[in-house]
Protein backbone atom coordinates (compact mmCIF):
# COMPACT_ATOMS: atom_id res chain seq x y z
CA UNK A 1 0.00 0.00 0.00
CA UNK A 2 1.29 3.45 -0.81
CA UNK A 3 2.01 5.58 2.15
CA UNK A 4 -0.29 8.58 2.41
CA UNK A 5 0.67 11.80 4.16
CA UNK A 6 -1.14 12.04 7.43
CA UNK A 7 -3.11 14.99 8.63
CA UNK A 8 -3.04 16.67 12.00
CA UNK A 9 -3.75 14.37 14.88
CA UNK A 10 -3.96 11.35 12.64
CA UNK A 11 -1.77 8.42 13.41
CA UNK A 12 0.00 5.68 11.59
CA UNK A 13 -1.95 2.49 11.90
CA UNK A 14 -0.81 -1.03 11.47
CA UNK A 15 -1.01 -1.78 7.72
CA UNK A 16 -3.84 -4.27 8.12
CA UNK A 17 -5.94 -1.78 10.04
CA UNK A 18 -5.21 0.85 7.41
CA UNK A 19 -6.47 -1.44 4.65
CA UNK A 20 -9.66 -2.18 6.57
CA UNK A 21 -10.15 1.51 7.20
CA UNK A 22 -9.76 2.30 3.51
CA UNK A 23 -12.26 -0.39 2.60
CA UNK A 24 -14.69 1.04 5.12
CA UNK A 25 -14.26 4.53 3.69
CA UNK A 26 -15.04 3.27 0.19
CA UNK A 27 -18.11 1.32 1.32
CA UNK A 28 -19.41 4.47 2.99
CA UNK A 29 -18.74 6.51 -0.14
CA UNK A 30 -20.89 4.03 -2.06
CA UNK A 31 -23.61 4.30 0.58
CA UNK A 32 -23.71 8.09 0.29
CA UNK A 33 -23.24 8.55 -3.44
CA UNK A 34 -24.65 5.43 -5.04
CA UNK A 35 -28.36 6.27 -4.56
CA UNK A 36 -27.78 9.55 -6.40
CA UNK A 37 -25.86 7.85 -9.21
CA UNK A 38 -28.57 5.21 -9.51
CA UNK A 39 -31.17 7.96 -9.73
CA UNK A 40 -29.36 9.63 -12.65
CA UNK A 41 -28.76 6.31 -14.40
CA UNK A 42 -32.38 5.26 -13.97
CA UNK A 43 -33.59 8.52 -15.48
CA UNK A 44 -31.91 7.39 -18.71
CA UNK A 45 -33.85 4.14 -18.91
CA UNK A 46 -36.78 3.68 -21.27
CA UNK A 47 -40.12 3.48 -19.46
CA UNK A 48 -40.52 -0.26 -20.05
CA UNK A 49 -37.17 -1.07 -18.46
CA UNK A 50 -37.50 1.01 -15.30
CA UNK A 51 -38.27 -1.69 -12.77
CA UNK A 52 -37.73 -4.63 -15.10
CA UNK A 53 -34.32 -5.58 -13.71
CA UNK A 54 -34.74 -4.41 -10.15
CA UNK A 55 -35.87 -7.79 -8.93
CA UNK A 56 -33.99 -10.06 -8.59
CA UNK A 57 -30.85 -8.05 -7.93
CA UNK A 58 -28.23 -8.08 -10.69
CA UNK A 59 -25.96 -5.98 -12.86
CA UNK A 60 -28.87 -4.46 -14.78
CA UNK A 61 -30.44 -3.40 -11.52
CA UNK A 62 -27.66 -0.86 -11.41
CA UNK A 63 -26.89 -0.04 -15.03
CA UNK A 64 -29.49 0.84 -17.65
CA UNK A 65 -29.57 -1.73 -20.43
CA UNK A 66 -30.82 0.77 -22.97
CA UNK A 67 -30.54 4.52 -22.66
CA UNK A 68 -32.90 7.22 -23.84
CA UNK A 69 -33.71 10.82 -23.04
CA UNK A 70 -37.44 10.21 -23.52
CA UNK A 71 -38.43 11.01 -19.96
CA UNK A 72 -36.59 14.34 -20.08
CA UNK A 73 -38.22 15.08 -23.44
CA UNK A 74 -41.57 14.37 -21.84
CA UNK A 75 -40.90 16.70 -18.91
CA UNK A 76 -39.90 19.58 -21.14
CA UNK A 77 -42.44 19.08 -23.94
CA UNK A 78 -45.56 17.75 -22.28
CA UNK A 79 -45.10 19.32 -18.85
CA UNK A 80 -43.98 22.81 -17.86
CA UNK A 81 -40.76 21.60 -16.26
CA UNK A 82 -38.74 24.32 -17.92
CA UNK A 83 -41.01 26.81 -16.20
CA UNK A 84 -40.54 25.11 -12.80
CA UNK A 85 -36.78 25.20 -13.22
CA UNK A 86 -36.81 28.85 -14.27
CA UNK A 87 -38.98 29.68 -11.25
CA UNK A 88 -36.52 27.95 -8.96
CA UNK A 89 -33.60 29.77 -10.55
CA UNK A 90 -35.33 33.13 -10.28
CA UNK A 91 -36.29 32.58 -6.65
CA UNK A 92 -33.02 31.07 -5.43
CA UNK A 93 -30.93 33.54 -7.45
CA UNK A 94 -32.89 36.59 -6.29
CA UNK A 95 -32.80 35.54 -2.65
CA UNK A 96 -29.05 34.93 -2.89
CA UNK A 97 -28.39 38.36 -4.42
CA UNK A 98 -30.78 40.31 -2.18
CA UNK A 99 -29.59 38.46 0.89
CA UNK A 100 -25.94 39.20 0.17
CA UNK A 101 -26.82 42.88 -0.32
CA UNK A 102 -29.03 43.34 2.75
CA UNK A 103 -27.02 41.09 5.04
CA UNK A 104 -23.62 42.51 4.13
CA UNK A 105 -24.89 46.06 4.69
CA UNK A 106 -26.32 45.19 8.07
CA UNK A 107 -23.29 43.12 9.01
CA UNK A 108 -21.01 46.02 8.11
CA UNK A 109 -22.90 48.37 10.42
CA UNK A 110 -23.02 45.77 13.21
CA UNK A 111 -19.30 45.09 12.93
CA UNK A 112 -17.85 48.46 12.06
CA UNK A 113 -20.06 51.33 13.21
CA UNK A 114 -20.92 52.29 16.76
CA UNK A 115 -24.51 53.39 17.05
CA UNK A 116 -27.26 53.46 19.62
CA UNK A 117 -29.40 50.31 19.71
CA UNK A 118 -26.74 48.35 17.83
CA UNK A 119 -26.79 45.49 20.32
CA UNK A 120 -30.56 45.48 20.48
CA UNK A 121 -30.96 45.32 16.72
CA UNK A 122 -28.33 42.62 16.37
CA UNK A 123 -30.04 40.64 19.12
CA UNK A 124 -33.28 40.99 17.14
CA UNK A 125 -31.63 39.46 14.10
CA UNK A 126 -30.23 36.60 16.19
CA UNK A 127 -33.64 35.96 17.71
CA UNK A 128 -35.04 35.31 14.28
CA UNK A 129 -32.31 32.74 13.76
CA UNK A 130 -33.73 30.76 16.68
CA UNK A 131 -37.41 31.16 15.82
CA UNK A 132 -38.37 28.14 13.74
CA UNK A 133 -39.84 29.10 10.39
CA UNK A 134 -42.43 26.35 10.83
CA UNK A 135 -43.84 28.20 13.86
CA UNK A 136 -44.54 31.36 11.86
CA UNK A 137 -45.83 29.57 8.79
CA UNK A 138 -49.49 30.28 9.52
CA UNK A 139 -49.29 33.98 10.47
CA UNK A 140 -46.82 34.65 7.68
CA UNK A 141 -49.21 33.04 5.23
CA UNK A 142 -52.03 35.26 6.52
CA UNK A 143 -49.82 38.34 6.18
CA UNK A 144 -48.78 37.67 2.58
CA UNK A 145 -52.34 36.70 1.72
CA UNK A 146 -53.51 40.03 3.09
CA UNK A 147 -50.82 41.73 0.99
CA UNK A 148 -52.22 39.95 -2.06
CA UNK A 149 -48.91 38.22 -2.74
CA UNK A 150 -50.07 34.63 -3.05
CA UNK A 151 -48.82 33.10 -6.33
CA UNK A 152 -46.14 35.66 -7.06
CA UNK A 153 -42.36 35.80 -7.17
CA UNK A 154 -42.52 38.44 -4.41
CA UNK A 155 -43.99 35.98 -1.92
CA UNK A 156 -41.30 33.42 -2.67
CA UNK A 157 -38.45 35.92 -2.47
CA UNK A 158 -39.05 38.88 -0.17
CA UNK A 159 -39.99 37.17 3.12
CA UNK A 160 -36.82 35.05 2.78
CA UNK A 161 -34.52 38.11 2.98
CA UNK A 162 -32.42 38.63 5.02
CA UNK A 163 -31.20 35.29 6.29
CA UNK A 164 -30.11 35.84 9.87
CA UNK A 165 -27.32 33.31 9.42
CA UNK A 166 -25.83 35.42 6.61
CA UNK A 167 -25.83 38.54 8.77
CA UNK A 168 -24.15 36.55 11.50
CA UNK A 169 -21.46 35.01 9.26
CA UNK A 170 -20.66 38.27 7.51
CA UNK A 171 -20.47 40.25 10.75
CA UNK A 172 -18.05 37.65 12.07
CA UNK A 173 -15.89 38.07 8.99
CA UNK A 174 -16.03 41.87 8.97
CA UNK A 175 -15.00 41.97 12.63
CA UNK A 176 -11.79 40.26 11.62
CA UNK A 177 -10.77 42.78 8.97
CA UNK A 178 -7.87 45.01 10.06
CA UNK A 179 -8.89 48.40 11.35
CA UNK A 180 -5.99 50.10 9.56
CA UNK A 181 -7.60 49.64 6.15
CA UNK A 182 -10.53 51.66 7.28
CA UNK A 183 -8.37 54.39 8.79
CA UNK A 184 -6.41 54.69 5.56
CA UNK A 185 -9.64 54.99 3.62
CA UNK A 186 -10.94 57.61 6.00
CA UNK A 187 -7.84 59.70 5.46
CA UNK A 188 -8.59 59.46 1.76
CA UNK A 189 -11.96 61.01 2.54
CA UNK A 190 -14.09 57.89 2.35
CA UNK A 191 -17.29 57.79 4.35
CA UNK A 192 -18.88 54.53 5.47
CA UNK A 193 -20.47 53.94 2.09
CA UNK A 194 -17.12 54.29 0.41
CA UNK A 195 -15.40 52.00 2.92
CA UNK A 196 -18.15 49.40 2.59
CA UNK A 197 -18.30 49.50 -1.18
CA UNK A 198 -14.67 50.04 -2.14
CA UNK A 199 -12.78 48.26 0.63
CA UNK A 200 -14.85 45.84 2.67
CA UNK A 201 -16.84 44.22 -0.13
CA UNK A 202 -13.88 43.60 -2.47
CA UNK A 203 -11.91 42.10 0.43
CA UNK A 204 -14.83 39.83 1.31
CA UNK A 205 -15.45 38.24 -2.07
CA UNK A 206 -14.84 34.65 -0.92
CA UNK A 207 -17.11 34.93 2.11
CA UNK A 208 -19.78 36.72 0.08
CA UNK A 209 -19.64 33.85 -2.38
CA UNK A 210 -20.00 31.36 0.50
CA UNK A 211 -23.05 33.18 1.79
CA UNK A 212 -24.61 33.47 -1.66
CA UNK A 213 -24.04 29.78 -2.39
CA UNK A 214 -25.54 28.68 0.91
CA UNK A 215 -28.54 30.93 0.30
CA UNK A 216 -28.96 29.64 -3.25
CA UNK A 217 -28.69 26.03 -2.22
CA UNK A 218 -31.12 26.38 0.64
CA UNK A 219 -33.63 28.32 -1.42
CA UNK A 220 -33.34 25.91 -4.34
CA UNK A 221 -34.27 23.14 -1.95
CA UNK A 222 -36.91 25.04 0.00
CA UNK A 223 -40.22 23.30 -0.06
CA UNK A 224 -42.67 24.11 2.73
CA UNK A 225 -43.07 27.82 1.99
CA UNK A 226 -43.52 27.47 -1.80
CA UNK A 227 -45.94 24.62 -1.17
CA UNK A 228 -48.07 26.86 1.03
CA UNK A 229 -48.04 30.10 -0.97
CA UNK A 230 -48.30 28.90 -4.56
CA UNK A 231 -51.30 27.21 -6.12
CA UNK A 232 -50.86 28.16 -9.74
CA UNK A 233 -48.63 25.89 -11.83
CA UNK A 234 -47.00 28.93 -13.46
CA UNK A 235 -45.52 29.90 -10.06
CA UNK A 236 -44.58 26.39 -8.98
CA UNK A 237 -40.94 25.75 -8.10
CA UNK A 238 -39.23 22.52 -9.04
CA UNK A 239 -39.24 21.00 -5.52
CA UNK A 240 -43.00 21.35 -5.21
CA UNK A 241 -43.40 20.02 -8.73
CA UNK A 242 -41.32 16.96 -7.90
CA UNK A 243 -43.07 16.31 -4.60
CA UNK A 244 -46.51 16.44 -6.17
CA UNK A 245 -45.47 14.84 -9.45
CA UNK A 246 -47.92 12.34 -10.83
CA UNK A 247 -50.14 12.53 -7.77
CA UNK A 248 -53.34 10.76 -8.58
CA UNK A 249 -52.05 9.19 -11.81
CA UNK A 250 -50.38 5.84 -12.24
CA UNK A 251 -46.80 6.22 -11.03
CA UNK A 252 -44.44 6.81 -13.95
CA UNK A 253 -41.08 6.02 -12.46
CA UNK A 254 -39.05 6.96 -15.53
CA UNK A 255 -40.43 10.50 -15.37
CA UNK A 256 -40.00 10.66 -11.61
CA UNK A 257 -36.32 9.74 -11.92
CA UNK A 258 -35.83 12.44 -14.54
CA UNK A 259 -37.71 15.00 -12.44
CA UNK A 260 -35.67 14.13 -9.34
CA UNK A 261 -32.47 14.41 -11.37
CA UNK A 262 -33.44 17.82 -12.66
CA UNK A 263 -34.28 19.01 -9.16
CA UNK A 264 -30.93 17.72 -7.88
CA UNK A 265 -28.69 18.88 -10.73
CA UNK A 266 -28.26 22.63 -10.16
CA UNK A 267 -27.01 22.56 -6.55
CA UNK A 268 -24.84 19.51 -7.24
CA UNK A 269 -23.13 21.23 -10.15
CA UNK A 270 -22.63 24.42 -8.15
CA UNK A 271 -21.28 22.38 -5.25
CA UNK A 272 -18.76 20.52 -7.35
CA UNK A 273 -17.48 23.79 -8.84
CA UNK A 274 -17.47 25.88 -5.66
CA UNK A 275 -16.94 23.20 -3.03
CA UNK A 276 -14.39 25.14 -1.02
CA UNK A 277 -16.74 28.05 -0.46
CA UNK A 278 -19.61 25.87 0.68
CA UNK A 279 -17.47 24.00 3.11
CA UNK A 280 -15.94 27.12 4.59
CA UNK A 281 -19.35 28.72 5.10
CA UNK A 282 -20.80 25.69 6.84
CA UNK A 283 -17.74 25.07 8.99
CA UNK A 284 -17.76 28.69 10.19
CA UNK A 285 -21.48 28.59 10.85
CA UNK A 286 -21.03 25.44 12.88
CA UNK A 287 -18.08 26.58 14.94
CA UNK A 288 -19.18 30.08 15.70
CA UNK A 289 -22.80 29.17 16.23
Amino acid at each position, binding site marked *: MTHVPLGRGARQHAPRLEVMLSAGR*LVLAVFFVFPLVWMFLSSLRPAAEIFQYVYPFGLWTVLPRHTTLDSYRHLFHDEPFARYLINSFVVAGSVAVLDVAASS*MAAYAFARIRFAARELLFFL*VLTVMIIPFEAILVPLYLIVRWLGWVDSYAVLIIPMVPRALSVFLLRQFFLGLPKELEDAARIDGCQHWGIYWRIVLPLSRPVLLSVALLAFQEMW*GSFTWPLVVTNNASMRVVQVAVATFGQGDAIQYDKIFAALSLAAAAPLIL*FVIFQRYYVRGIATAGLKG
Partner: protein
Amino acid sequence: MALPAGWLVRRRRPELSAYVFVLPAVLGVLVFGIAPILYAFVVSLHNYDLVNPHPPFVGMRNYAALAADPIFWTALRNTTAYALMLVPLQTAAGLGLALIVQPSARWIAVLRTAYFMPVVVSYVVAAGLWEILFATPNGPVNSLVALGHLPPQLFFQDPRQALPLIAVMSTWKWSGITMLIYLSGLHEIPLELYEAAEMDGARGARRFWSITWPLLQRITLFVVVVNTIEAFKIFTPVYVITSGGPMNSTTVLVFHLFREAFRYVHLGYASALSFALLFLILGLAAIQFWLLREDRSE
Protein backbone atom coordinates in the same frame (compact mmCIF):
# COMPACT_ATOMS: atom_id res chain seq x y z
CA MET B 1 -9.75 65.55 27.91
CA ALA B 2 -10.56 68.18 25.35
CA LEU B 3 -12.31 66.87 22.30
CA PRO B 4 -11.17 67.94 18.87
CA ALA B 5 -13.30 70.47 17.08
CA GLY B 6 -15.99 68.98 14.93
CA TRP B 7 -16.19 65.87 17.14
CA LEU B 8 -19.95 65.98 17.36
CA VAL B 9 -20.44 66.39 13.66
CA ARG B 10 -18.05 63.65 12.74
CA ARG B 11 -19.58 61.32 15.27
CA ARG B 12 -23.12 61.99 14.20
CA ARG B 13 -22.87 61.35 10.53
CA PRO B 14 -21.62 57.82 10.56
CA GLU B 15 -24.21 57.00 13.17
CA LEU B 16 -27.06 58.08 10.96
CA SER B 17 -25.69 56.12 8.05
CA ALA B 18 -25.56 53.05 10.29
CA TYR B 19 -29.34 53.01 10.42
CA VAL B 20 -29.50 53.15 6.66
CA PHE B 21 -27.14 50.18 6.53
CA VAL B 22 -29.24 48.03 8.82
CA LEU B 23 -32.62 49.23 7.55
CA PRO B 24 -33.36 46.59 4.88
CA ALA B 25 -32.30 43.70 7.11
CA VAL B 26 -34.04 44.98 10.24
CA LEU B 27 -37.20 45.74 8.27
CA GLY B 28 -37.21 42.21 6.89
CA VAL B 29 -36.66 40.76 10.36
CA LEU B 30 -39.43 42.86 11.90
CA VAL B 31 -42.05 42.32 9.21
CA PHE B 32 -41.39 38.68 8.37
CA GLY B 33 -39.92 37.42 11.64
CA ILE B 34 -41.13 39.28 14.71
CA ALA B 35 -44.53 40.51 13.54
CA PRO B 36 -45.74 37.01 12.56
CA ILE B 37 -44.97 35.72 16.06
CA LEU B 38 -47.09 38.43 17.63
CA TYR B 39 -49.77 37.95 15.01
CA ALA B 40 -49.75 34.19 15.61
CA PHE B 41 -50.84 34.86 19.17
CA VAL B 42 -53.75 37.00 18.00
CA VAL B 43 -54.76 34.36 15.47
CA SER B 44 -54.58 31.62 18.09
CA LEU B 45 -57.26 33.45 20.10
CA HIS B 46 -59.72 33.36 17.19
CA ASN B 47 -61.34 30.81 14.96
CA TYR B 48 -59.76 31.68 11.63
CA ASP B 49 -61.13 29.91 8.60
CA LEU B 50 -60.20 32.33 5.75
CA VAL B 51 -63.89 32.71 4.87
CA ASN B 52 -65.38 34.68 7.73
CA PRO B 53 -64.06 38.28 7.55
CA HIS B 54 -64.62 38.66 11.31
CA PRO B 55 -63.30 35.48 12.91
CA PRO B 56 -64.97 34.92 16.27
CA PHE B 57 -62.88 35.43 19.41
CA VAL B 58 -62.57 32.19 21.32
CA GLY B 59 -60.05 33.09 24.00
CA MET B 60 -57.87 30.17 25.07
CA ARG B 61 -60.18 27.56 23.61
CA ASN B 62 -57.75 26.65 20.81
CA TYR B 63 -55.13 25.86 23.44
CA ALA B 64 -57.64 23.77 25.37
CA ALA B 65 -58.50 21.96 22.14
CA LEU B 66 -54.80 21.36 21.59
CA ALA B 67 -54.36 19.80 25.01
CA ALA B 68 -57.38 17.59 24.41
CA ASP B 69 -56.36 16.54 20.90
CA PRO B 70 -55.07 12.96 20.91
CA ILE B 71 -53.36 13.48 17.54
CA PHE B 72 -51.36 16.35 19.01
CA TRP B 73 -50.03 14.01 21.70
CA THR B 74 -49.36 11.33 19.12
CA ALA B 75 -47.48 13.90 17.06
CA LEU B 76 -45.48 15.05 20.07
CA ARG B 77 -44.61 11.46 20.93
CA ASN B 78 -43.64 10.66 17.34
CA THR B 79 -41.52 13.79 17.07
CA THR B 80 -39.75 13.00 20.33
CA ALA B 81 -39.17 9.42 19.25
CA TYR B 82 -37.82 10.69 15.95
CA ALA B 83 -35.42 13.06 17.72
CA LEU B 84 -34.28 10.26 20.03
CA MET B 85 -33.45 8.14 16.97
CA LEU B 86 -32.03 10.83 14.72
CA VAL B 87 -29.78 12.69 17.14
CA PRO B 88 -27.60 9.76 18.30
CA LEU B 89 -27.50 8.36 14.77
CA GLN B 90 -26.47 11.59 13.14
CA THR B 91 -24.03 12.61 15.85
CA ALA B 92 -22.30 9.22 15.75
CA ALA B 93 -22.31 9.18 11.96
CA GLY B 94 -20.92 12.70 11.73
CA LEU B 95 -18.17 12.02 14.25
CA GLY B 96 -17.32 8.67 12.70
CA LEU B 97 -17.09 10.16 9.23
CA ALA B 98 -14.97 13.06 10.49
CA LEU B 99 -12.53 10.64 12.15
CA ILE B 100 -12.05 8.49 9.07
CA VAL B 101 -11.66 11.38 6.62
CA GLN B 102 -9.36 13.40 8.85
CA PRO B 103 -6.10 12.48 7.12
CA SER B 104 -5.32 15.07 4.48
CA ALA B 105 -4.58 12.75 1.55
CA ARG B 106 -6.05 13.74 -1.78
CA TRP B 107 -8.20 10.66 -2.28
CA ILE B 108 -9.60 11.16 1.18
CA ALA B 109 -10.57 14.71 0.26
CA VAL B 110 -12.55 13.20 -2.61
CA LEU B 111 -14.31 10.93 -0.13
CA ARG B 112 -15.17 13.92 2.01
CA THR B 113 -16.92 15.39 -1.02
CA ALA B 114 -18.68 12.09 -1.61
CA TYR B 115 -20.05 11.93 1.95
CA PHE B 116 -21.23 15.49 1.63
CA MET B 117 -23.17 15.02 -1.63
CA PRO B 118 -26.56 14.16 -0.08
CA VAL B 119 -26.43 17.42 1.89
CA VAL B 120 -26.42 19.35 -1.36
CA VAL B 121 -29.44 17.74 -2.99
CA SER B 122 -32.75 18.93 -1.62
CA TYR B 123 -34.74 17.16 1.08
CA VAL B 124 -37.53 16.54 -1.43
CA VAL B 125 -35.15 14.75 -3.79
CA ALA B 126 -33.61 12.71 -0.97
CA ALA B 127 -37.04 11.71 0.31
CA GLY B 128 -38.40 10.96 -3.16
CA LEU B 129 -35.37 8.85 -3.95
CA TRP B 130 -35.59 6.83 -0.73
CA GLU B 131 -39.28 6.31 -1.32
CA ILE B 132 -38.42 4.60 -4.60
CA LEU B 133 -35.46 2.68 -3.20
CA PHE B 134 -37.66 1.27 -0.45
CA ALA B 135 -40.67 0.74 -2.69
CA THR B 136 -42.67 -2.38 -1.92
CA PRO B 137 -42.82 -5.21 -2.59
CA ASN B 138 -40.31 -5.35 -5.48
CA GLY B 139 -38.18 -2.25 -4.96
CA PRO B 140 -34.39 -2.15 -5.13
CA VAL B 141 -33.81 -2.54 -1.40
CA ASN B 142 -36.25 -5.41 -1.15
CA SER B 143 -34.32 -6.94 -4.00
CA LEU B 144 -31.19 -6.73 -1.81
CA VAL B 145 -33.18 -8.13 1.12
CA ALA B 146 -34.08 -11.07 -1.08
CA LEU B 147 -30.37 -11.74 -1.64
CA GLY B 148 -30.23 -12.44 2.10
CA HIS B 149 -33.19 -14.84 1.76
CA LEU B 150 -35.40 -12.62 3.88
CA PRO B 151 -39.06 -11.91 3.21
CA PRO B 152 -39.85 -8.57 1.49
CA GLN B 153 -40.33 -5.73 3.98
CA LEU B 154 -43.08 -3.13 4.03
CA PHE B 155 -40.65 -0.34 4.96
CA PHE B 156 -42.46 3.01 4.73
CA GLN B 157 -45.81 1.22 4.76
CA ASP B 158 -45.10 -0.46 8.07
CA PRO B 159 -46.10 1.64 11.10
CA ARG B 160 -43.11 0.29 13.02
CA GLN B 161 -40.54 0.82 10.28
CA ALA B 162 -41.62 4.11 8.72
CA LEU B 163 -40.39 6.59 11.35
CA PRO B 164 -37.03 4.86 12.01
CA LEU B 165 -36.47 4.70 8.25
CA ILE B 166 -37.11 8.42 7.95
CA ALA B 167 -34.50 8.92 10.68
CA VAL B 168 -32.02 6.80 8.72
CA MET B 169 -32.83 8.73 5.56
CA SER B 170 -32.27 12.04 7.34
CA THR B 171 -28.98 10.75 8.69
CA TRP B 172 -27.95 9.84 5.15
CA LYS B 173 -28.99 13.29 3.99
CA TRP B 174 -27.50 15.46 6.75
CA SER B 175 -24.57 13.71 8.44
CA GLY B 176 -22.18 15.43 5.98
CA ILE B 177 -22.80 18.70 7.80
CA THR B 178 -22.16 17.16 11.20
CA MET B 179 -18.99 15.66 9.74
CA LEU B 180 -17.79 19.10 8.63
CA ILE B 181 -18.45 20.61 12.03
CA TYR B 182 -16.55 17.79 13.75
CA LEU B 183 -13.72 18.07 11.22
CA SER B 184 -13.17 21.72 12.05
CA GLY B 185 -13.24 20.74 15.73
CA LEU B 186 -10.68 17.99 15.20
CA HIS B 187 -8.37 20.48 13.51
CA GLU B 188 -8.44 22.65 16.62
CA ILE B 189 -7.00 19.90 18.80
CA PRO B 190 -3.28 20.63 19.32
CA LEU B 191 -1.02 18.00 17.80
CA GLU B 192 1.22 18.07 20.88
CA LEU B 193 -1.48 16.43 22.93
CA TYR B 194 -1.40 13.41 20.65
CA GLU B 195 2.37 13.33 20.73
CA ALA B 196 2.33 13.41 24.52
CA ALA B 197 -0.23 10.63 24.57
CA GLU B 198 1.93 8.61 22.20
CA MET B 199 4.83 8.86 24.66
CA ASP B 200 2.58 7.64 27.44
CA GLY B 201 1.72 4.70 25.25
CA ALA B 202 -1.91 5.66 24.65
CA ARG B 203 -3.15 4.41 21.27
CA GLY B 204 -6.30 3.85 19.32
CA ALA B 205 -9.43 3.73 21.44
CA ARG B 206 -7.68 4.92 24.59
CA ARG B 207 -6.35 7.93 22.82
CA PHE B 208 -9.79 8.70 21.43
CA TRP B 209 -11.49 8.51 24.81
CA SER B 210 -8.80 10.37 26.72
CA ILE B 211 -8.07 13.21 24.28
CA THR B 212 -10.31 13.49 21.24
CA TRP B 213 -13.68 12.87 22.86
CA PRO B 214 -13.27 15.21 25.88
CA LEU B 215 -11.86 17.99 23.72
CA LEU B 216 -14.76 17.68 21.30
CA GLN B 217 -17.27 17.97 24.11
CA ARG B 218 -18.35 21.51 23.27
CA ILE B 219 -18.81 20.63 19.62
CA THR B 220 -20.76 17.53 20.55
CA LEU B 221 -23.06 19.59 22.73
CA PHE B 222 -23.58 22.03 19.91
CA VAL B 223 -24.23 19.26 17.39
CA VAL B 224 -26.66 17.48 19.70
CA VAL B 225 -28.71 20.57 20.41
CA VAL B 226 -28.79 21.79 16.82
CA ASN B 227 -29.77 18.35 15.56
CA THR B 228 -32.45 18.05 18.23
CA ILE B 229 -33.93 21.36 17.11
CA GLU B 230 -33.78 20.23 13.49
CA ALA B 231 -35.40 16.94 14.44
CA PHE B 232 -38.34 18.74 16.05
CA LYS B 233 -38.89 20.64 12.80
CA ILE B 234 -39.09 17.52 10.63
CA PHE B 235 -41.70 17.88 7.90
CA THR B 236 -40.59 17.46 4.28
CA PRO B 237 -39.88 13.70 4.17
CA VAL B 238 -43.08 13.00 6.06
CA TYR B 239 -45.05 15.02 3.53
CA VAL B 240 -43.28 13.44 0.56
CA ILE B 241 -43.10 9.81 1.65
CA THR B 242 -45.79 8.92 4.17
CA SER B 243 -48.21 11.85 4.57
CA GLY B 244 -48.22 11.10 8.28
CA GLY B 245 -49.17 7.47 7.83
CA PRO B 246 -49.43 4.59 8.10
CA MET B 247 -51.94 5.01 10.92
CA ASN B 248 -50.44 8.33 12.06
CA SER B 249 -47.18 6.55 12.88
CA THR B 250 -45.23 9.36 11.17
CA THR B 251 -47.53 12.24 12.07
CA VAL B 252 -45.05 14.70 13.55
CA LEU B 253 -45.74 18.14 15.02
CA VAL B 254 -45.10 20.21 11.90
CA PHE B 255 -47.02 17.80 9.70
CA HIS B 256 -49.98 18.00 12.08
CA LEU B 257 -49.66 21.79 12.03
CA PHE B 258 -49.54 21.86 8.22
CA ARG B 259 -52.51 19.55 7.88
CA GLU B 260 -54.65 21.45 10.37
CA ALA B 261 -53.76 24.82 8.82
CA PHE B 262 -53.82 24.16 5.11
CA ARG B 263 -56.01 21.09 4.64
CA TYR B 264 -58.65 21.64 7.31
CA VAL B 265 -58.20 25.45 7.45
CA HIS B 266 -58.16 25.44 11.26
CA LEU B 267 -55.82 28.41 11.34
CA GLY B 268 -56.54 29.41 14.93
CA TYR B 269 -55.89 25.90 16.17
CA ALA B 270 -52.76 25.64 14.02
CA SER B 271 -51.48 28.89 15.55
CA ALA B 272 -51.91 27.49 19.04
CA LEU B 273 -49.93 24.50 17.81
CA SER B 274 -47.30 26.89 16.41
CA PHE B 275 -46.84 28.29 19.89
CA ALA B 276 -46.38 24.85 21.37
CA LEU B 277 -43.70 24.23 18.75
CA LEU B 278 -42.11 27.61 19.35
CA PHE B 279 -41.85 27.07 23.10
CA LEU B 280 -40.44 23.60 22.64
CA ILE B 281 -37.73 24.90 20.36
CA LEU B 282 -36.97 28.00 22.39
CA GLY B 283 -36.66 25.68 25.38
CA LEU B 284 -34.12 23.57 23.51
CA ALA B 285 -32.25 26.70 22.41
CA ALA B 286 -32.19 27.93 26.01
CA ILE B 287 -30.73 24.59 27.10
CA GLN B 288 -28.04 24.95 24.45
CA PHE B 289 -27.23 28.46 25.58
CA TRP B 290 -27.06 27.39 29.20
CA LEU B 291 -24.95 24.29 28.56
CA LEU B 292 -22.41 26.03 26.37
CA ARG B 293 -22.14 28.88 28.80
CA GLU B 294 -21.69 26.62 31.81
CA ASP B 295 -19.03 24.79 29.91
CA ARG B 296 -17.15 27.96 29.15
CA SER B 297 -16.92 29.14 32.75
CA GLU B 298 -15.40 25.88 33.94
